[in-house]
């Protein structure tokens, strides 16, 4: 039994009157692949946004590693080692693939802007060191051929891959993937699954992913959380989830 990396307790989130999340609690163990599923508008993305501090819940606590927080803020989350990708790609469109990935390493860079402006030894060396790290990610994701292409010009599937790369660049302990395979064709999905598993395996990164493709979810995740109308209705290993009546109802949309 691996130790728990992230623990969410009784998180509730509302926008104005609208309740997005109600009393949600769940945990993520280090090195596991954790899936969050649920019908549209079940609050999956909101949950991720709470985890890395884009939204601030009204109630509940988030424990990451040894530290406990009322809520996160994006910068702190990043500093703690939480990286993520977005449902509708949020890459830096004007920048090349390489620059996007390099940007993912910003927290690891120490030199100040003066050193950079004067291109002093430390700044230069730091830049080159991180270039190598970025190249390793490019190699890992097999995107050498588009290294210098502005991401705006890339097809959707590749953009998703680059975004994963940007998240990996931060060498996160916890990786949040918001529908990493949405809108992909079979082949792209297969690749993406491979990459997600390789990441989990190679770097031991814990992964939380939202995904609609049940096949994928059941294949690659160790445990699954099911949300419906902002509440957790199930939390178990895939095989159990498949059987769970509550889940089936939720998906068939049985009246509440």
């Amino acid at each position: 039994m691996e130790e728990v990396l992230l623990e969410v307790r009784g998180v509730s989130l509302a926008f104005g009157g609208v309740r997005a999340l109600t009393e949600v609690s769940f945990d993520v163990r280090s090195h596991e692949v954790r899936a969050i599923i649920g019908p549209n508008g079940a609050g999956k993305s909101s949950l991720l946004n709470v985890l890395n501090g884009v939204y601030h819940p009204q109630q509940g606590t988030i424990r990451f590693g040894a530290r406990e927080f009322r809520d996160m803020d994006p910068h702190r989350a990043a500093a703690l080692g939480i990286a993520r990708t977005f449902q509708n790609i949020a890459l830096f469109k004007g920048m090349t693939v390489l620059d996007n990935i390099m940007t993912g390493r910003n927290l690891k860079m120490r030199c100040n802007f003066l050193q950079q402006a004067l291109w002093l030894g430390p700044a230069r060396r730091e830049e080159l060191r991180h270039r190598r790290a970025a190249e390793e990610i490019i190699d890992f994701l097999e995107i050498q051929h588009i290294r210098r292409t502005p991401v705006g010009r890339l097809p959707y599937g590749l953009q998703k891959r680059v975004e994963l790369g940007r998240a990996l660049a931060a060498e996160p302990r916890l990786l949040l993937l918001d529908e990493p395979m949405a809108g992909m064709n079979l082949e792209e999905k297969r690749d993406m699954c491979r990459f997600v598993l390789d990441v989990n395996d190679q770097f031991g990164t814990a992964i939380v992913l939202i995904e609609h493709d049940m096949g994928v979810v059941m294949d690659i995740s160790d445990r699954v959380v099911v949300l419906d109308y902002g509440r957790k209705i199930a939390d178990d290993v895939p095989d159990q989830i498949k059987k769970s009546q509550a889940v089936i109802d939720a998906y068939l949309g049985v009246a509440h």
Partner: protein
Amino acid sequence: MGSYFTGFMQESSRSRGGGTLDTFPKLLMRHAQERGARPAIREKDLGIWQTWTWRQFADEVRALAAALSAEGFRRGEHLALIGDNRPRIYAGICAAQCLGGIPVPLYQDAVAGEMVFPIQSAEIAYALAEDQEQVDKLLEILPQCPSLRRIYYDDARGLRHYDQPQLMSCEKLLELGRGSATRNPGFVDEEIAKGRGSDTAAMFFTSGTTGVPKGVVLTHHALIDRSQVVAEMEKLGQDDVVLAFMPPAWIGQNIFSYAQPMVTGYCICCPESGETVVNDMREIAPTYYFAPPRVFEALLTQVSVRMEDAGALKRWLYKHFMGVAKRVGTRILEGRRINFLDRIKYGVGDLVVYGPLRNVLGMSKVRIAYTGGEAIGPDLFSFYRSLGINLKQLYGSTETSVFVCVQPDGQAKSDTVGPAVPGVELKFTPERELLIRSPGLFKEYYKNPDATREAKDAEGWFRTGDAGYVDHDGHLRIIDRAKDVGKLADGTLFAPKYLENKLKFFPYIKEAVVFGAGRDRVCAFVNIDMDAVSNWAEKRNLAYSGYTDLAQHDAVYALVGDCIAQANADLAREPELAGSQIHRFLILHKELDADDGELTRTRKVRRRFLAEKYGTLVDGLYSNQETVHVEAQVRYEDGRTGVYSADLKIRDAKSFTPAAAKSAA
């Protein structure tokens, strides 16, 4: 030039030095001393050209060798190497040789099944695989190959959870090696010193157009001698650069990316990946280049296709100056005199077209470019030469350590393969089969004395199996495989390969298979070139849903028909071949594919195999029906397979009487 010359001087002096440098490991160690800081291998990895100097390379080889022997690898044992062009693979080859072992490079794109025979026949116990893909294949065939004890892998990606006892990563192996090297330092060098030129250097399995593959055993002496002679002839030196992009298991790659660099000390470069070869070639700009005709053809097709999309001005410039080049380019390349105006024109052309073109093709610095293995089309050949690229033909095979004939500078012709290189003797049997005697000849076919005896007689003459003759200015001219040179029913000479090549020289035709031996006339299968024809179709906005559909278009049939008619016109002009013009043809519903056994790994057509597989089609050709029904498994782009069933059209082709040909031409 100077540096080439000095390079050449060193080589020759060394070769006169004789015995001392008679094996590849010895050569390597010499380079490590003489030019230790110069690049031996570059590999595009992680975005830049990672460079291994000769010293680093030698150290790596030493460590690997030490490790292998620590692993129990002994003199005379075989080491299988499966992978793309990677420094580790070449280091592995040399490491095996250091210990007096025999490297056996296998095709990395072969399916697992094809690896069984070599491994079994040589009872191979050690294998060095590039990555997970290759490892998986080896594990798959493990049951059939109990001899295989150790599998080392270079790239650990995805392999961490493999727990087979046979597996070990190269890192680990190298540690092991460095460890044992420190324990007894002199060991590897002693082993190297034990090596003799007469030892076996490597074994290459010929894919063989028919039957089981044969393991061709080549000695250090054979490979080094041939590499040496040609290196001197072409003044190769340490400043030359080669891009290694063909399978290292093919001697046609291996001789240029292992044997010759070992002799001359030039640098070889390994591309980042399949998709990036073109780009990598441009970055590296090799000075010495070898590729089979199909590569040059693919390049040319790409050029023409891309020029189609260019703006009017560029298209005009291209058309106009390629015209000029066609007229005078080759003559200029051969340094013959041409009038001043043309020289000016060519100069301008070189500024706006040829130069840039060489640049985008990455051939700006090419000093010597070879092609061989198959015949090359005259247009294709002259295209590159007229651009100012010194493209020449060579003739040879695995059994001859490649170099048998090489065209000297200024004597390049598309229909010959040049005179014999020093040390080689040629003669012909009454049936026009070519026999060769050369220091580069192979020792034997591994564990196959019958085949060896059949191929090499007591006086050491090797039966090439090729039919041809030496023309008036001493250049060898190959018509076809001797066994394939047959006769039609009426006894006229029938040289299928020759005909097929004639057809393949048309940009629209990718593959052709002709039949006729013992029949009354010649007929042909044709594969259209998807790139060229689809482009052609788009311009006439022909609608089609894929290869199979496009192939059956009447317009396409007409197009191919014209090509064949032209070929016939040429044939009509060659007395002994006029009788073998092509009368009927059909376009196949699928592209011939090595994975289906229709082509060899080197993409030679397996005519007999095809004749059986598509028997009904052949009958159709020789019947007088207009269509023939076919039902076959086809593999679609997305990898699915399905059954294709349709009627293939059969068409007659215009043929000429020798007289009529004149007017047609």
